[in-house]
């Protein structure tokens, strides 16, 4: 209707000029071309003053590092076991929504982990350490199986495993008598 104010600069322009405030902690993918994070620039410039430029590790060193990292990953489920065990113990053997959900999570975690085992170790696997990685994967599977065993122990404690005679009682039938006796009132 009337003379309008000059339009504010578009949002994208603001974003471009100010840059993201938060720093991403996880750097799983490379930065785009030409993008430089201000803080890193500062850090690297300050580091430059103190430390020597870092030497690129050799392939063997890289393998060892990756193997170390892989072992760490593989043993991680085992480290969670005591906590899980305590949690399971605390929830009791009664059939409640809380304990049932916890048991469900307990089963879901290891099974999913085992199914995604290739993805988990893909980054750390190279042509040269493939042999060692087999042992690592086996350990990973073993640890997850331990977690599963914990779940089974728990389910057994809750009485959900058909391990006793009473669980199969419905399939047992009474013995049929070959003769029948009838009382004849006089």
């Amino acid at each position, binding site marked *: 209707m009337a003379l309008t104010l000059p339009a504010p600069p578009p*949002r994208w322009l603001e974003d471009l000029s100010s840059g993201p405030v938060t720093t991403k902690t996880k750097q799983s993918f490379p930065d785009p071309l030409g993008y430089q994070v201000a803080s890193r620039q500062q850090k690297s410039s300050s580091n430059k003053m103190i430390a020597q430029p870092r030497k690129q590790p050799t392939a063997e060193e890289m393998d060892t590092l990756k193997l170390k990292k892989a072992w760490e990953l593989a043993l991680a489920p085992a480290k969670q076991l005591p906590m899980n065990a305590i949690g399971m113990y605390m929830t009791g053997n009664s059939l409640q929504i809380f304990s049932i959900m916890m048991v469900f999570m307990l089963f879901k975690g290891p099974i999913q982990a085992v199914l995604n085992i290739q993805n988990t170790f893909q980054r750390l696997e190279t042509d040269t350490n493939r042999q060692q990685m087999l042992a690592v994967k086996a350990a990973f599977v073993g640890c997850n199986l331990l977690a599963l065993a914990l779940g089974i122990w728990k389910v057994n404690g809750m*009485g959900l495993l058909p391990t*006793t*005679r*009473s*669980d199969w*009682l*419905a399939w*047992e*039938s*009474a*013995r*049929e*008598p*070959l*003769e*029948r*006796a*009838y*009382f*004849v*009132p*006089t």
Partner: protein
Amino acid sequence: MRASNRANAHIMLSTLLTAASLFLVPALAVFADEAWNVDYHFALLGAPKEETSFFHQPNPSSRASLIYTLSEQHALGAVNPRDGSLVWRQLLSSDGVAYRTSFLRAGEGQDVVISGIGHEVAAWSAADGRLVWTLSTDGPLEDVEILELSDGKETAGAKDAVALSSGANPTVQRIDGASGAVKWQFNIDGSDAPYQLSASSTQIFAILLHKTILGYVKLRVVVLDPVTGHKVDEYSLNSENELSTTENIVSVGANSASPMIAWTDSLYTTLKVNVVGTKSIQSFDIAAHDDSPIEHVKVHAPYHVNSLSHFLVHYQTAASHWADVFHINLKNGKVEKAYSLPKLAGRGAFSTSTSDANVYFTRVTRDEITTVSSASHGVLGRWSLNTFGVAAGIGEQVEPIHAASEVSVKGDTVSAIRTTILLSTGDWVMLRDGKGIWNRPEMLASTMVVTFALPADAATLVQQLEVEAHSNPVAAYIHRVQRHLSDLQRLPSIIVSLPQQIVKGFLGTSADDLTASDTFGFRQIIVCATRGGRLVALDAGSPDKIVWNVNVADLQPGQSREPFLASRIAGVVEVSSRAGAGIQYNATNGQPLAERLPVVPEGPQVPSSQVVLYTMHDGTLEASFNRTPAWAFTPMHGERIIDMVPRPVNDPVASIGKVLGDRRVLYKYLDSNIALLVTAQDSMGTANVYVLSTVSGAIIYSNVHTGVDLTIPIASIMSENWFAYSFTNEASDEASKGHQLVVGELFESLVPDDRGMMGATTNFSGMQTATEPFALTQTYQIPEVISKLAVTRTRQGITSRQLLAVLPDSNGIVGIPYGAVDPRRPVNRDPTKDEQAEGLVRYTAVLEFDPKWFLNHQREIVGVKNVFTSPALIESTSLVFAYGLDIFGTRLSPSFSFDILGKDFNKLQMLATVAALAVATFIVAPLVMRKQVDQRWRFL
């Protein structure tokens, strides 16, 4: 349009009223929603006897009267004539002893009624039935009368009674009406049998029977002075060669102004009348009115001293009846025939009522009631009867058997008349001015056996479903389509009733929707066979009405029968008086079935050669196999069999083992062929309990109890793999008198997870393999006698059991949960965790009956002889029917109603919640939609 509006308004109003009443219903009991609702109770007296049923004013100052009766079941009671409800009731013989005679008298203007039965004369407060006094006589009572003296010496209070007793020392006693003390006693000498008492206002007459050498009976009259009790006179009546039996003595007139004795010869050709006090005998010829011979002659005379001395003689033949009215001239003792009442077809009943000195006779026939004065034959009142309003067999003529009336006369007409009539169907009805007011189904008080049957329409559905289940899929499908097509014919009527059903569905609950289809099996037909030879059917769903009532056996008086009832085919009831084929009736309408349906035996099919039949014969159990004797159980010398309870033929068991707390299994000893046998040894006071294998006759469990009081009933029951019995042990040095309940359970092995000797074999022969169960028993001290035990039955046996115990002393029935008497309750220690998981609690020797276990709530259920249980169609529920004197029925859910919504389920609330959620969804949905769209357009 207006009509529909009004209907809508009506529905809305009723909705509001129902909703309001939902909030107003107070909590009366623990199961307040079920008491008086699922259960029903008929407080019965039994068939009233003619001599002991009358109207009487309990309060002399008020004109309101009650109907008093002492019935054939020896129940004394007062019934409110307005609605037929029971005012009070006393059972004079609880132990089932049948007395030949019983008496009930009420003096005019007295507030007590005096009963005489067996050896006991008792006075009861007429208004509330409290015992005033009681007196035992040495010999059995022959007659009880109330003295209506006019000598002026009588006090204004209670009138005295006179009792005549026979036995070794026949006596006449005058009993003080206020205290029950004997005022004087006269011993009758000689060997003549006392027969009856009669009293005039100045003298007491004891009538004795003297047997002559030729076998005839001679009447001897002893005249006593009522004040001193001395003999005044004695004479014999010249009745030789006429009276051969006492049955021909028609009447010994009681307290009328001039008592008289009437008798006939055995062919009913002449009537002889003697006015007591004189020696003259007058004879009247009995004219034959039709071809059929006279069946009986009855005299109806007023009971009051100051009434006119008129009497009516009622002649009954098989086809018709008539009556003559006689007058007694008090001055010269002459009896004159005044007039006759004409012959009418069918049976008739006459009753006498008095008003001041006037005497009125009321005649009840099939189709009318007439009242005449004793003075002249003019009809003072006539009321025609269309129907007595009772259920009877099709084509059956309902006849009056006897009647009692109360008339009020204004001028020359009867202004109001109330008549109670016992009908040939066994109903006791009340008519006011010829209109039915109430009816009491007193024939049910003599119920002997009972069975439950599915209604015929439900049964046809069950049969059709069975057809579908047993044919091949294609045929079954065609059959089903055809069935549904034929069901379509009912569609219009369903559509008409649909709105009503929807309203009901909204407001009611599933449990009380009994009017439509019976999906739960609560509306079973209960068929009772009575001692009078009738079959009476009740609907367990709406028990207020008798569904049908048919005569199945023409019984002579005094003849007894022992019928058996069974419903082997759904919808069909079979009556037999001996084991074997009987007569079959349609369960819904009581029609005899012409064509014989094949009898399908219950339970698993067994080749007929493999059937062992056993029977009780001369105190021993005898079994035959292939018509050759198989085994016999003969009690030891001096031992007698009290009771034998076989395991029910159709006794489904859901689980063959008991799951323990640690999830192991104790296997039950499940054998269809076992029976519990209780015997008594009277000389030693011991009771023996045996569990028999009824195929081989082997005793698989036995127990002996010493010091048992064998006069008190021993109740026993057997079901599944357990048995229970109760007895009373006598006081001894180490134990006091007490009642005990023993529960025993049989297992294949006491080791968990072990199936005993036979292991997992699928079948076994009781004759070839002898197995013995392992029994666990536990004894509980109970507070009172149990006269009968029963157990709840459900369709598949999944539901836990309740032990139903009849308590005769507190007039109740308790349902004891099986868990409370489980023999596996740990003794002298607390239960372990596993046992707790099973629900076992520590054993305590004393078992108190929890007030919540009483099925009868506040009601008094008197004289229950047996309890019959039947499964409903849903698993949780068992139908219970107790009979004896009273009729009581209820539904039980021992494991609570897990498969049906209870009354506490609020349908309205549920529907409101669903509606509220739906509305909320509709309102919120666009809001959420807008928010989502907005969010999409917003930059991060």
